[in-house]
């Protein structure tokens, strides 16, 4: 089988397009590169959606944590503590077991039946866990940045008569983002790497549709040779991490474009397990 044919067959295998059966007997480099690359789609999907939604949730949580009212502050503090204080791996298991316990037939609310079975699938359930997790980690980063907003900025906003939403949107939020961005970049890389945990935790893969590491492990188990599939997966991740750094670096330049002189450079210290 030519490599082009393999790419056609397995290039989108992870989302159910192309060959149904997994390769058998022969595991060429082309097979491994194609399937592991196709699994990468899941990692990108999880990371992109969790980061997008998590960003807004984190902003809200950071504001709640800095709120004066204890009814807002305490729940935010607890949420952040629970999700930052426990391993993501355990959170996946716990979420899966909790979601499985929902009634199969759906929940009746005022005559409307809300289906629940989709929640136990990885694409939804794991995404929710990743979303909550990154919301908690990012909220802590944003909270720290919010506390570091210079006092003078706020006084200036007050002097201009800005209050509430206007003050937040025009003064607090941009400065907070600017200060938080280097750490937030690390968090994004960190979350991207954490997406590899999904199919190794409670969430089962359906019809052997999994992420990059899932396929890498598949090949390692089949060929008893870890020296090929894992470096391939590592290669893919390094490439995508560099792309992510590039993207976040561009945002960082944009956030700091009004500042004279040397812009704060992004210090990338990624790769931490949660």
């Amino acid at each position, binding site marked *: 089988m030519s490599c082009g044919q393999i790419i056609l067959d397995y290039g989108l295998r992870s989302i159910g397009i192309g060959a149904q059966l997994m390769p058998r007997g022969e*595991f060429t480099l082309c097979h491994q590169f194609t399937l592991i690359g196709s699994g990468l789609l899941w990692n990108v999907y999880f990371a992109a959606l969790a980061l997008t939604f998590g960003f807004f949730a984190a902003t809200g949580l950071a504001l709640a944590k800095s709120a004066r009212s204890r009814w807002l502050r305490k729940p935010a503090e607890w949420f952040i*503590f*629970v999700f*930052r*204080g*426990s*391993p*993501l*791996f*355990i*959170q996946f*298991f*716990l979420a899966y*077991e*909790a979601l*499985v*316990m929902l009634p199969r037939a759906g929940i009746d609310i005022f005559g409307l039946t809300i289906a629940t079975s989709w929640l136990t699938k990885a694409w939804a359930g794991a995404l929710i866990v990743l979303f909550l997790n990154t919301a908690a980690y990012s909220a802590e980063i944003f909270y720290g940045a919010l506390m570091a907003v210079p006092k003078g900025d706020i006084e200036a906003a007050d002097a201009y008569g800005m209050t509430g939403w206007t003050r937040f949107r025009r003064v607090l939020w941009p400065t907070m983002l600017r200060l938080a961005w280097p750490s937030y970049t690390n968090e994004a890389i960190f979350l991207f*790497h*954490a997406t*590899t*945990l999904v199919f*190794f935790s409670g969430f089962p893969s359906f019809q052997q549709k999994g992420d990059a*590491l899932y396929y*890498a*492990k598949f090949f*390692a188990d*089949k*060929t*008893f*040779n*870890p*020296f090929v599939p*894992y470096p391939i*997966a*590592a290669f893919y*991740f*390094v490439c995508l*991490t*560099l792309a992510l750094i590039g993207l976040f670096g561009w945002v960082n330049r944009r956030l700091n474009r009004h500042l004279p002189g040397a812009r704060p450079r992004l210090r*990338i*210290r*990624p*790769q*931490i*397990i*949660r």
Partner: protein
Amino acid sequence: MFASCADPKTLEGLNWLLCYLTTGKQVLFYQSFLTVLTLIAITAPIALAFGFGGALAARSHVAPLRWVGKGYTAMVRGVPDIVFFLFVPVALDQGLEWIRHKTLCPEWTAPVRQGSDFVVCAAAKLPLSSSPQSVHEIYGFVLAIIAFSVVFGAFAANVLYGAMQAVPQPQLETAEAYGMSRRQVSRRILIPQMWVYALPGLSNLWMILIKATPLLFLLGVADIVYWARELGSRKSAIYDFPHPDWRLWYFLVLLVFYLAMTKVSEVVLRRVTARLTRGQATMAGEAMRKAGA
């Protein structure tokens, strides 16, 4: 365990629960917490030593040594750690078996990799197939410890390298002016002072190490995750203690365990930071001095 537990079918309520929580399997579950704590206790110093070696190597004046050090610290960037956790034990296992195969069975001419198989002679197997189950378990655990130490050593090397860079340069120059050799400067000036700079990073690493321990499950060690799944799953009436699917509750126990570990670590690390900061020429040290005065 208790005499009253002899016939679990007749028990009810609290008695049942008490008996259930003291069965042999449950005790194995409790012991697996010790497994996790052992892993942390063994891994932390080894990883620190690896990291120390890596950071010193990265600062070395000998180019090949420096490349090794830099390569080691760069290793974990950009690649998910789980890749290493899956890779290192298998690679190490095969590497050791291959070396033993070469030395113990020189007359064996067939290639080690045959298609999709990794074949070594029986004498080279690690552990030997004749060895008892416990040896297999310990071997798996040791491989896990090495994998954790290598990965966390690389993290620690990053942190310690940064801390060594953070020690004020004039101090090192002064030491050189006093006629100390490079080695003496490192030992007397650099290393004693770098800890306070390394502490935030190291305490972060400690938290991460705690939170990485459930990955032991992926390495095939019978850890708390393994037992939580095993014991929590639904037990039908043929078991002594039938119960519905309790995995959720078991995982809640694990969650609480980890949250407690985090909380305790936070408190302890805060004290250690305060102790190390005392008398240091940093902002925090100065603040402490003023508060005391």
